[in-house]
């Protein structure tokens, strides 16, 4: 009875404060647009399960499981309480928050049993919200414009790249043909030379051809070796850390008697924490203590990741060249440079083709003794053409690599290709290179791979890098980079909400979507509509 008494007092006082349009005291917690539903003598539970009478509406006893009959009380756990929040946005609360002694609605309408007095803060809160929203909208407007421009630029650049690619491909074909012709000729010359040589000397000397070829081969190998070196180096590091870890992890129990008390303490603590122990921690080689147990954890085993390691190496060289502070690599410049190179190839090619054809024609197939001048010429041409061909192929593969990526609906993410963004948080520098990788750097030497590019997620509103360095007792590291609307492209926030699962925010004009702007504008419009004429009574 007492409850009912409180309820009616509270409702009456609430009624007094409401505008005169409020229809009935039992309509507490009902949205205005829903009031008609409740204007009958018998009302249906929304889930259709049963019916209830008007007297049972908000009588503080739950009749409908879905809470239809108790929009204004806490009686039904699944009920929702509607706060009008005049001056701000209306909200819908869980019934668990009605009369729980905590003010949830800014108009205080959720607390009416007299146990707590809630101040109406809708007007202040609303104004703050509107101002904030306005600022956000202003930024979005500018951002959307920038985005449009960037999208155009990206489209243009992509089509240029594509055009370049097709030109390059055509020319790769003809270059390839030329190189082959030169090669055949070169071999004939060399064969002839060999024969001549044999005739000249009766001694058994290593022939020129072999000599030449071996030099060539070793040259090729050289370039290969440098690649191998990179991988080998990584592997070496891996196996080194593996070795260290083995000491820690596996020899631990056996060598425990040789360890100092402190070492034992650290070792045992590391079981729970996975932290490296003792000096190993200080050298900070980056690997976690158990990675060594399974050396392959860090070592890319499939072709893809091997390639990544290679790329990674290349990029660090590039970065060094770019000088440390400027991570932002202006993609356009690079492009022009490559474009220039292509044009250069084209004109050179035309010239070369003529020259070579002439050369090929002029050199008599069977003339003997050989004209040394001609032979040298052929060799030189062959060498140059080969170099040109491999340059062209390199460029083709880099363009193909770039264009094979999902660059967004309008290719808008083209502008992020080849760029890196970084931010410093505490002792770590986080570096995100879209389409490539994400790393965490601590000081100069301690680098942890947070992940390699995987894909866009959540309809291009987030980038996912996965398969990073393994975690002790946990998954491989990964990072999700959420895109937010911002006027500059910068990394603003990095967090590790779950162990080894990182979350970052990249603010960029690319995140300023027109649709979202419209939505915000709509929201502001609604907020302004809710503004009461004279809100003194609040």
């Amino acid at each position, binding site marked *: *009875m*007492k*409850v009912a008494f409180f309820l009616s007092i509270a409702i009456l006082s609430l009624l007094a404060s409401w505008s005169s349009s409020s229809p009935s005291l039992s309509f507490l917690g009902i949205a205005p647009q829903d009031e008609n539903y409740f204007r009958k003598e018998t009302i249906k539970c929304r*889930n259709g*399960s049963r019916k209830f009478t008007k007297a049972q509406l908000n*009588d*503080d*006893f*739950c*009749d409908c*499981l*879905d809470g239809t009959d108790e929009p204004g009380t*806490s*009686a*039904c*756990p*699944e009920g929702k309480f509607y706060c009008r929040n005049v001056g701000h946005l209306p909200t819908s609360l*869980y*019934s*668990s*928050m009605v009369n*729980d*002694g*905590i003010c949830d609605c800014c108009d205080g309408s959720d607390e009416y049993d007299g*146990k707590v007095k809630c101040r109406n803060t809708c007007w202040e809160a609303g104004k703050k919200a509107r101002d904030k929203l306005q600022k956000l909208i202003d930024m979005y407007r500018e951002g959307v414009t920038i985005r449009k421009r960037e999208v155009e630029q990206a489209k243009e650049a992509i089509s240029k790249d594509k055009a370049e690619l097709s030109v390059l491909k055509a020319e790769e074909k003809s270059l390839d043909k030329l190189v082959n012709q030169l090669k055949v000729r070169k071999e004939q010359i060399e064969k002839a030379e060999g024969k001549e040589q044999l005739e000249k000397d009766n001694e058994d000397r290593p022939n020129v051809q072999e000599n030449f070829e071996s030099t060539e081969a070793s040259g090729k190998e050289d370039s290969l070796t440098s690649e191998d070196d990179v991988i080998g180096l990584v592997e070496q590091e891996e196996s080194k850390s593996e070795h260290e870890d083995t000491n820690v*992890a596996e020899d631990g*129990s056996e060598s*425990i*008697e040789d360890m100092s*008390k*402190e*070492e*034992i*303490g*650290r*070792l*045992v*603590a590391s*079981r*729970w*924490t*996975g932290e490296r122990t003792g000096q190993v921690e200080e050298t900070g080689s980056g690997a976690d*203590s*158990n990675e060594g*147990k399974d050396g392959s954890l860090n070592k890319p085993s499939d072709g893809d990741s091997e390639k990544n390691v290679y790329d990674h190496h290349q990029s660090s060289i590039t970065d060094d060249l770019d000088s440390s502070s400027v991570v932002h690599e202006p993609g356009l410049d690079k492009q022009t440079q490559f474009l220039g190179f292509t044009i250069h190839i084209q004109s050179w090619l035309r010239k070369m083709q003529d020259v070579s054809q002439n050369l090929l024609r002029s050199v008599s197939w069977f003339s003997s003794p050989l004209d040394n001048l001609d032979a040298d010429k052929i060799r030189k041409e062959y060498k140059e053409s080969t170099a040109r061909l491999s340059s062209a192929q390199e460029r083709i593969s880099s363009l193909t690599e770039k264009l094979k990526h999902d660059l967004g609906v309008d290719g808008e993410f083209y502008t992020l290709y080849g760029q890196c963004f970084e931010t410093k948080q505490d002792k770590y520098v986080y570096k995100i290179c879209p389409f490539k990788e994400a790393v965490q750097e601590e000081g100069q030497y301690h680098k942890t791979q947070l992940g390699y590019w995987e894909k866009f997620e959540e309809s291009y509103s987030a980038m996912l890098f996965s398969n990073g360095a393994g*975690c*002790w*007792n*946990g*998954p491989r590291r990964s990072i999700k980079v959420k895109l937010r609307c911002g006027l500059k492209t910068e990394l603003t926030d990095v967090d590790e*909400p*779950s*162990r*080894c*699962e990182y979350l970052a925010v990249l603010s960029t004009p690319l995140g300023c979507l027109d649709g979202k702007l419209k939505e915000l504008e709509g929201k502001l419009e609604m907020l302004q509509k809710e503004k009461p004429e004279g809100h003194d009574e609040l």
Partner: protein
Amino acid sequence: MASRIGGCRRPFLLLFLLSLASQTAFSWKKDEFRNCNQTPFCKRARSRKPGACTLIADQVSISDGLLTAKLIPRPIASQEEGEENQQIAKPLLLSVAIYQGGILRLKIDEDPALDPPKTRFQVPEVVVSEFDETMLWLSRVSTEILDGDSAPSSVVYLSDGYEAVLRHDPFELFVREKSSKSRLVSLNSHQLFDFEELRVKNEGEEWEERFKGHTDTRPYGPQSISFDVSFYGAEFVSGLPEHATSLALKPTKGPGVDDSEPYRLFNLDVFEYLQESPFGLYGSIPLMIALGKSGKSSGFFWLNSAEMQIDVLAEGWNADSGLSLPSDQKRIDTLWMSEAGIVDAFFFAGAGPKDVVSQYTAVTGKPAMPQHFATAYHQCRWNYRDEEDVENVDAKFDEHDIPYDVLWLDIEHTDGKRYMTWDSVMFPHPEEMQKKLAAKGRHMVTIVDPHIKRDDNYYIHKEASEKGYYVKDSSGKDFDGWCWPGSSSYLDVLSPEVRSWFSDKFGFDSYKGSTPSLYIWNDMNEPSVFNGPEISMPRDALHFGGVEHRELHNAYGYFYHMATSNGLVKRGDGKDRPFVLSRAFFAGTQRFGSVWTGDNTADWDHLRASVPMILTLGLSGISFSGADVGGFFGNPEPELLVRWYQLGAFYPFFRAHAHQDTKRREPWLFGERNTKLIRQAIHVRYMLLPYFYTVFRESNTTGLPIMRPLWMEFPSDEATFNNDEAFMVGSSLLVQGIYTERAKHVSVYLPGKELWYDLLSGSQYKGSQTHKLVALEDRIPAFQRAGTIIPRKDRYRRSSTQMVNDPYTLVIALNSSRAAEGELYIDDGKSFEFLQGAYIHRRFVFSNGKLTSLDLTPNNKSSKFTSQTVIERIILLGYSPGPKNALIKPRNEKVEVGLGPLVLETGLGSSSLVVTIRKPSLPVDKDWTVELV
């Protein structure tokens, strides 16, 4: 399931588990811990043959109300040939005391008058002072010659139905029924009793013990005690926490036991522990309870805090011993071995299992009454990283409409693992943070561990080292071990002065950044010492009064828990009930707070193992306990997490916790469906809080567990004896976990003759039957026992704090006589006023269509508690619809009776409707009747 994992299969299980664990860097390392063969006292005791003891009781008499005797070697003439047992050099003193309620206490120690090199350690402050007052002053002893004996036996009164018999030669002590003379519990029936008296080192004798590079100097030499205890008429024995084993303890030695290792009681911080292992875990209670066919139960408790090893001997273990025991009685024999201390043993005569627990808790104290909030849901993780994290997690609970009461901070919240400090970067505003939580009625718990960082700028260390409050190493210097903070020392909490000093550190003026809504968690108090032998403290470390750590070890955590708990009482001027969770425990821990089962693992086996572990703790007095929901190590699949929440909602202590390397697993992180399932599981707990709190109060007054084995409620139903998959919450609720992935069906045995009602759908099931049920996604099987009344609150809130004024629902489950009974206990949920009678305690009785509310509070109470809360709904299960009205008296008002849902949550329960008395608005603190008309 446990029964299928018999002794012979254990090695395979171990292998299997080890292979599972091998994907993590480390797993449980068997060889890091001593087994019995590596433990000289255990090896020695275990290798002794029945009949080895040649002691007899001499000079038996009554003095100071006790039955006393001296144990001396049997005179040489009567000793059998070839016996070279080096028995005692000096007579031992024996005394038997009898206490009210069927409790016998046996003490055997060296005679202080004969100048032993050292006083043996007796564990102080475990036996409560009220117990001492219940001693019965013995004035009469009768003599009797037992069948086949030549020497007499002395018989004294124990209780109305039982008497105690001290057999003089050979020395034996047992409890028997007066009428039938059949035995109940006995000690030294196999003459395995052994007592290594302290002595001077013999020339050339080696006392040192070495294990894994650690040397134990053992300056006092061998001092172990062992003896056999037999339980007559027993079908199984239970107890001896803490082991991750089945509820009924499997034999550890004898025919059919392959992997013979006794149950070890030695508090250890075991990394990634395994189930089905007799190795010791974080706590130790040397209590064993036996149950026999007739529902008759007895118990045995050895108050001793040194390392203990206990064998449960398989039938036929002594086939070749030639000793004759009363053979008509089925019996379970056990062997108890301890490294040091004295014999201070308690025999509990039962007669039922509830009586045994009540007797045991009469000795060691009844469980503390927790604050109400502590009985709700706790959210923990190692670690909630910073204030922002805390704020976000807190907000997400509201956003998802999931109630919770307590947010926990693990070790990372401190400034470099200096407890009672805060990391200034991550937690710059601890008071503000706690106040924000408190504004929503929520509480916070921070961790405070016993290892103190050796840093002169740390105030605790500075004071403790200056005052000499640390445990000393064998050379007398402050013991220096390694733990989370690095080099650490350990407070000597055996000293009352140190405890008192330490408890003052919890004062608001001392613990900076603490507020009244902050409570405490004690971890690592085994104590865990990373570079110590078996990850603990050396046994020759020295405590207050020259006590060696070996003597005290198992009670170290107990005293630390005690100091912390007392600290919180002091902090609140004796007006605020403490809440302290501890990992280590000992007999009596129930007086200081709750316990959890330590670092479990996110797998189905650990989910299953949690039930017998918690049940065993409950039998041993620690009724407020739980396991980490979700599993501490590893990442649970959503299904496992959901099932764990569904089970955990019925644990007395309901907390989710996770290792720092695991993925975040707050309830909303696994998609909408799983969020809903977890919300529902937590809702079930909140709905049942009034019932839980009432059972907590029952436990507080009787010592009975919250979570009980089925056989505790149905001791004469043998089908319950091997069941540790299902359990009772209080006496009215039965819960069956689902312990397998993608379970289609679940079998549940419902004991007794009466019906059971599905807790959420109201469907009826017959008793004394195993039912094969469809495994539902949204809940595990739970049933209300016919003949009971369960009080609920059907409105969920952010936390239990906001539920205080919410109305109640009573669910009446009718039995075959169409009757039911239940209780409701309410107090302020916070203070100690209830001790002065400031509480509401009602008994609801339903019979002949009438519900009556009766007052159970005593008349002489000096304080009063009132409530404006009403009962908003009465549900009748098993009542055929018919009556349209109910008449309320004395108000003389008719209220409507109709059909309504059993639970107010779609998806939970079924759509079928049950008889409901609508809005009776009955004041909860008044007498009234409601009659269906």
